[in-house]
């Protein structure tokens, strides 16, 4: 039913992906789908990587490692944004479309009062993406 699972990931919070990642792995296995890891970075050095290339390499390493560990086809797509504080959602949405993903699985926070003012990334993706979206709390 699904051919390409898109898994947006925040490389700074890589330790908090447990449940979402497991969900992605299980569903990808079930549908024999590919998992595409996507992540957004600015062009300036960040805590995760000092250059966009280093960022890409880290994401590719994560994808390759997960693919190997779980016997899945994986790919990685690192995206740069001029202003990641603001443009992350827009960049992710464009990337989901470009990658041709038909299912997005992503980690999100528990809903809180702030969501009424600023929606979380997951909320925005779910509201605007043409693909199916699975938010893991």
């Amino acid at each position, binding site marked *: 039913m699904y051919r390409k699972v898109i898994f947006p990931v925040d490389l700074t919070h*890589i*330790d908090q*992906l*447990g449940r979402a*990642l*497991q969900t992605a792995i299980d569903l990808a296995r079930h549908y024999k789908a590919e998992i595409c890891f996507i992540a957004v*970075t*600015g*062009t*300036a*050095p*960040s*805590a995760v*990587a*000092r*250059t*966009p*290339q*280093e960022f*890409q*390499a*880290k994401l590719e*390493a*994560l994808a390759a*490692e*997960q693919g190997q*560990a779980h016997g899945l086809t994986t790919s990685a797509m690192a995206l740069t944004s*001029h*202003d*990641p*504080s*603001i*443009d*992350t959602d827009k960049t992710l949405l464009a990337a989901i479309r470009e990658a041709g993903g038909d299912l997005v699985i992503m980690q999100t926070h528990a809903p*809180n*009062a*702030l969501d009424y003012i*600023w929606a979380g990334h997951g909320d925005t993706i779910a509201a605007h993406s043409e693909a199916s979206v699975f938010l893991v709390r």
Partner: protein
Amino acid sequence: MSQTDDDDATTPAEEALPEPEGASEIIETDYEIGQDNITPKIGPFGLDIHNPVFVVSGLVVVAFVIITLAFQDAVGPALGAMRGYLTSTFDWFLIMAGNIFVLVCLGILVSPLGKVRLGGADATPDYSYGGWFAMLFAAGMGIGLMFFGVLEPAYYFATPWGDQPLSRDIGIVDGALVDPATVEAARRTAMAGTIYHWGLHPWAMYAVVALSLALFAYNKGLPLTVRSIFYPIFGEKIWGWRGHVIDILAVFATLFGLATSLGFGAQQATAGIGFVFGMEDLGATATFPVILIAIITALALVSVLRGLDGGVKVLSEVNMVLAILLMVFVILVGPTFTLVSQFFGNLGAYATEILALSNPIGRDDDGYRQGWTAFYWAWWISWSPFVGMFIARVSRGRTVREFITCVLLIPTIVSAIWMTAFGGTAIDQLINSVTESAVYGFVIDAYVPELSLFGMLSELPFAAITSVIGIILVIVFFVTSSDSGSLVIDTITAGGKINAPVSQRVFWVIFEGLVAAALLLGGGLVALQAASVSTGLPFAVVLLLACFALVKGLMNEPR
């Protein structure tokens, strides 16, 4: 997934640190960006801020505002006197430093170092020339050109206070025009003296900071914050108190520079609106200026929430189009042929007088050299962390040569065109109507600098339309500065992180508006602007060190 998997996932990337696009020279440092950051939660708002830079800068700003408001009578004159003392005692130092910045930039431009590309040899530019240039200009001096375009040339041409450049002739003495040859000489000196203040020197100050920041962030992998420039000098120690001091000073200069400009800008826009719509008492109380500050802050807030591409860039482009329209209009309805022929003459005058104007010693034109040049230099330098950070942020992918051409040479020519159009028209009005002209009334007779532009426009056709465009331009330039300033302050106070939560940028925009409103209501704009300009002197030293670090850093880059 277990924790071990995580570690494994990141290990290969750390072992072989990939180079930036193409060859470059990443600095090996143990400092991890954001390692000194704290992430407090205030209600639902999560923050990601550098400790102590965020906390100390915030507290210092609040403390300065409170002290200034509480002890106005003592603090105001003291800070004003300090600024006066610094610009009149160290004028030679500021002027000399300015010359060094220009020489360093021009030296890099013609040397093989110009081939280095920001972001690595294969990096591609983040922005097109149009968008990039619009942002450079809006951040660099948009608002100043509006304020001084008419004022400065007209002032030098007819000053009765002896402030003319190089103590040369003046064109109007005791309300009467002097002989034509002297008038022409005075006009020429006035334009050269103005273009000098808006040409190579200010842009070289911005270029040194911007180029260093861009180099050390994009090519060397250090955080995008002012302290990174000094890595070649202080090494790992830069992550300690030395770096904190530099960053806090940068935040202080930027925030007070912005807040006091916003306060003055609101007063000026109020005066302009009152003049254009015939409501002279609009500026009598602080109500209208405070409403303007609120409007500007609200617009800046919208722009902040739209991000760099959807906010600042769009505003900058709107500004550029409006400014070009206004300038073309002034050229067409003003003395067109005179202005076109004067433009080359003015550039020539600038080129021939630049050595005399930039000579730091043995001059007797104190009013010009200390009151204007040294003040401007301190002012530009105190803005350089803000403008430099912003320019660096949008300049990735350009070669150093391209960068210096577009940040130094082209803006100088654009400034010269602008000054020729606005100042040339104003001087033309002075020559034709002398004391009858509105410009004479606002610049010489009663010194009301904020109305000089509107006075000049009022004597051209369609004054109602052009004055409104002028007011809109002033307001939009302020919105742009407020937005880009918050972006810069936020990046510095987040330890160089450009992906910190947006709520922090919102905080700085509102904070800046509040500081401006408090100073406007309680008094203290003059005092704190003096404090902000005074930071120009220590920063001049910092910038000289930056020149050294920049050249050293560029030499290590593969070309």
